[in-house]
């Protein structure tokens, strides 16, 4: 990814202190940096918690991919909050900031006392003063309580939480929107305020409307039994997925080279096809096992059928054709060697995201000033 380094950022007027010490909080601040804010990561003397969270580049576990991903584009400052000097430094930093992101239980009053215009953002697992404030949150815990996990996986197996930290990250996106909303209010009325995001709350809000359906009529669809017309089959070059709308059934059969299925009594009528769907999946699997999946997907998409190849993470690098033409990856040269950063979540026509500076070493400040 390349872009005009001199173009002003959309949030070029915003200065941020990241004291969040969480995936959600640091991702929120990373997005603020992406779109032009000057962001300073406030780290304890031993370094941010995310520096010691994997996956790691090296066997010695000193270089965290997680930390790098969450903190490109930020400066770092070391603050020992246990010392009076550290607290004084923090107050000075807060005086000059527009936004600060903190964990639950942080002394917000001390920040408010030095800066009435500050947007103070609390990002935490279960919030403050709730019946579960004292609970420990990790990604699987959020997924379990979201109402989503129970629907993931096979009917005859245990539910699956997913992969990585997706709810935590999405809480970061929600926190970003909270900050922007509060900045909007401040911009229009001059009034600053506290805002808050709980990861568990975000996770619950990401769930398909099962709870409303239950409220409507008491029904509940069990895992793996929802009858979605989704086929996942393995081809010679990997897995592909096809979503078969009723009106697409004939064209899918034609493209897969199995026109006899169109009139097969097991699948002819919509209701029969639904009842015998697994038999159809088995027929397709037999047919495509030695075919090139990407060619099938191309042919299906040419007929407007929803289909896609299943990519392994290591197939999504610099050489991935679909990302290359999009100029997706940033490459960043650092003293330690070339580093990669993922492309932007959204592309602004007038104020594009700049190539980020590398994630800071402890106490390092080199991200360009915002003002």
């Amino acid at each position: 990814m390349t872009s005009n380094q001199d173009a002003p950022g959309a949030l070029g007027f915003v200065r941020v202190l990241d004291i969040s010490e969480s995936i959600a909080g640091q991702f929120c601040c990373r997005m603020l940096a992406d779109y032009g804010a000057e962001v300073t990561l406030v780290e304890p003397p031993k370094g941010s918690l995310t520096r010691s969270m994997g996956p790691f580049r090296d066997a010695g576990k000193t270089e965290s991919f997680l930390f790098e991903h969450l903190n490109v584009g930020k400066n770092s400052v070391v603050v020992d909050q246990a010392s009076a000097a550290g607290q004084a430094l923090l107050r000075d930093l807060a005086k000059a900031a527009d936004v600060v992101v903190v964990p639950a239980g942080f002394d917000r009053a001390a920040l408010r006392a030095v800066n009435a215009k500050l947007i103070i953002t609390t990002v935490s697992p279960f919030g403050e003063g709730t019946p579960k404030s004292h609970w420990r949150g990790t990604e699987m815990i959020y997924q379990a309580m979201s109402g989503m996990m129970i629907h993931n996986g096979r009917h005859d197996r245990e539910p699956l939480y997913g992969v990585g930290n997706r709810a935590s990250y999405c809480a970061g996106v929600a926190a970003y929107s909270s900050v922007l909303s509060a900045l909007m209010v401040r911009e229009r009325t001059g009034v600053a305020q506290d805002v808050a995001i709980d990861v568990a709350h975000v996770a619950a809000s990401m769930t398909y409307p099962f709870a409303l359906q239950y409220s409507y009529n008491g029904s509940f669809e069990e895992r793996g039994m929802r009858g979605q017309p989704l086929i996942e089959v393995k081809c010679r070059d990997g897995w592909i997925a096809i979503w078969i709308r009723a009106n697409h059934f004939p064209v899918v059969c034609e493209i897969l080279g199995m026109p006899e299925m169109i009139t097969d009594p097991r699948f002819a009528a919509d209701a029969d096809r639904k009842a015998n769907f697994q038999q159809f999946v088995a027929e397709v699997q037999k047919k495509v096992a030695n075919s090139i999946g990407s060619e099938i997907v191309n042919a299906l998409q040419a007929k407007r059928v929803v289909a896609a190849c299943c990519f392994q993470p290591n197939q999504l690098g610099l050489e991935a054709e679909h990302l290359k033409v999009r100029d997706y990856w940033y490459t960043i040269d650092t003293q330690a060697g070339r580093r990669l950063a993922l492309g932007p979540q959204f592309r602004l026509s007038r104020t594009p995201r700049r190539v980020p500076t590398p994630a800071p070493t402890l106490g390092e400040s080199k991200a360009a000033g915002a003002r």
Partner: protein
Amino acid sequence: MLDRPKLSPAKQTFPEPSKGLPLSGFRVVELTTAWAGPMAGRILACLGAEVVHIEPANNLDSWRSYTALPLLQRYPKQDGGERRYNRASLFNSQNTDKISLSLDLKAPGGKETFKDLLAKADGLITNFTPGMLQRLGFGNEALWAINPRLCIVEMPAYGNSGVMKSWTALGPTMEQVAGMCASVGYGDGRPVSTGPAYLDPIGAFHGSAAMLTALLHREHSGHSQHVEVPQVEAAMQLIGEILLCAVETGKNPHVNGNKLADSAPHDVFPTVGTDEWVAIDVTSDAEWAALCKVIGRPELATDQRFATTAERVRHQDELAEPIAAWSKQRDKHQAATLLQDAGVPAAAVYKAVDTLACDYLNARAFSIPLDHPEAGTHLHQGLPYRFEKTPVKHRRAAPCLGEHNHYVLKNVLGRSDAEVAELERAGTIRSVPDA
């Protein structure tokens, strides 16, 4: 097609705009369908914007579930009623607080009405495949000729350029391309997509964040802009550390149910009941010792097989047995509470009924009753935004199809009764779908 009765239109209503919320005074026009786009609009509406969801009566939002074979479990009392497109739980979950304008852009006067509305709008958000706006004659330049202050957000699955730009997509297929499904499974190599499409709410949070960015930038600088939200590329950010590791080292994540390669136990365990589970994530030796005490097996804390994280990972099949023997005797909520009280990350795996009963979510007023004229009063699930001075919540149930046609035409655009009647006669605005 099914034999459908002649339908009568829904009643017209004239809602009051929001006051004192972060986006009060902003108007956003929404051309979307299904989940990601409508949820993005729902977020903006909840934050105070007047969001006008344009839904042509001859091409309904797919989440109005107006399909030939209705899934009865989508409707109140499993009954579609006369106008089941107004009673669909899917649509009604994602369109709270919105204005419904059932406008056919291709019918006489349709584009003129759309233009007049855009002239009075701050934002336009869409989630169709790229090129749809251009084909209708509304590329960026044309839009800015109508309204130079318009912020435009498009949410294409794969971006507005590139080899996949014209591909159709749904959450479950986008999740495959994002590198996520291959990283979830039972260890047999078969990818697993999230039961209900997880990429849709992710796209919604991104789409609404994009609109907020453009609106705030405009508020500060006076300049509007176009924002492209390529949903798959955006979602890749949410597994960024996994992608960086895989791309740089070639190593894909370990896939074996809920188990992790570097921490154990990290799994679900059966509890009392059918398909009821407790999730347990032990992240340190101290938590392991606490868990052993809770399950009444303190001797396991000093068992060499489980002494360190590495040993627990190596012997995770053996440690599952005593945990399951304990959990099977307990209610999932009780099991989770006992563990959390001892400092061990744990949670009941919720079903819908648990979501409605959860003390934490209820403390957040996550499920609140909203009255819908055709669907009745039900508990609707909310959004996670919390503001000290401008608190937001869902204020109004989702609109019936075309419920605000007259509000938009008369109150917003200042059209006369005769002009509105003419648009209705021409079928440009309707509140009854095609059979």
